[in-house]
């Protein structure tokens, strides 16, 4: 069974003092246009990242699932299916976890009220169940951690997954940066 993730919401991420260069590594960055068809580019990119850290098939499934749900949410709800807007993906490693950061410039949303709510309501019947609306629930279920930041001009969702025990120790973060990130994720 996968652990229920932590969800943290921050205002103005830069206030944490995290240097922007923390995530700036060309091979760990992917820029998308706000179209669902762009998600096909994400699958091989994730596989490349997962290869580097020797993620298991089940963990890769969880990563692919969370990224598809999060990105579909940005395109369909954040940008309301309007193409021509940026979505920037970056990865980093800190505190034994691999983090995927998703930045967009869509209008901000409040997780407690809307999209990042972990709905635990009882099951509906086949007649009444809504065919949609499972994405955010799956995101909560399959991610190890979730952190949401309201940026001055958009949103940032950071999704974490525990690294395999034997994963390479290489990290694009310095030790100091890694410690900062870990404490940020753990605080609640």
């Amino acid at each position, binding site marked *: 069974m*996968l652990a229920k993730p932590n969800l943290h919401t921050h205002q103005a991420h830069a206030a944490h003092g995290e240097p922007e260069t923390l995530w700036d590594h060309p091979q760990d960055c992917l820029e998308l246009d706000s179209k*669902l*068809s762009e*998600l*096909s580019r994400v*699958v091989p990119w994730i596989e490349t990242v997962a290869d580097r850290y020797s993620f298991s*098939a*089940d963990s890769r*499934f*969880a990563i*692919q*699932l969370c990224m*598809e*749900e999060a990105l*579909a949410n940005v395109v369909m709800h954040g940008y309301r299916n309007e193409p021509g807007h940026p979505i920037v993906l970056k990865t980093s490693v800190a505190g034994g976890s691999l983090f995927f950061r998703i930045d967009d410039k869509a209008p901000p949303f409040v997780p407690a009220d809307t999209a990042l709510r972990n709905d635990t309501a009882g*099951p*509906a*019947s*086949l*007649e009444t*169940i809504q*065919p*949609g*609306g*499972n*994405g955010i*629930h*799956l995101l909560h*279920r*399959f991610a190890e951690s979730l952190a949401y930041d309201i940026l001055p001009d958009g949103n940032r969702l950071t999704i974490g997954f525990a690294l395999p025990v034997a994963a390479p120790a290489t990290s694009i973060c310095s030790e100091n940066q890694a410690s900062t990130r870990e404490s940020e994720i753990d605080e609640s």
Partner: protein
Amino acid sequence: MTISTESIEGGITRVLLGGRLDIQGAAAVDLRMNVLAGSSKFLLIDLSKVSFLGSMGLRSIIIPAQAVSRRGGKVALFSPVPMVEEVLKASRVDEIIPIFHDLNAAVAALC
């Protein structure tokens, strides 16, 4: 994403899906699934060859299942791989569309 069908005992239409039932996969099978839902009373959706299932893929299962149910029919899911079954359980779809790993049991439940 692949989709094919076969008729099995009891007037059941077995729908064999294969590949990734992600956003692109769902778009590829939605029309065929909806046509099958409009013409079949008993639908067994075989997920044994589905390697990935996301929320858009869930829609591709739920909407046809609702259509069949509205016409008095039944739908069941067959033999999902463990992580696909995990998605079905996490979204609680398994509580409204039964999952079987034994074909005889699935046929008995549908007929």
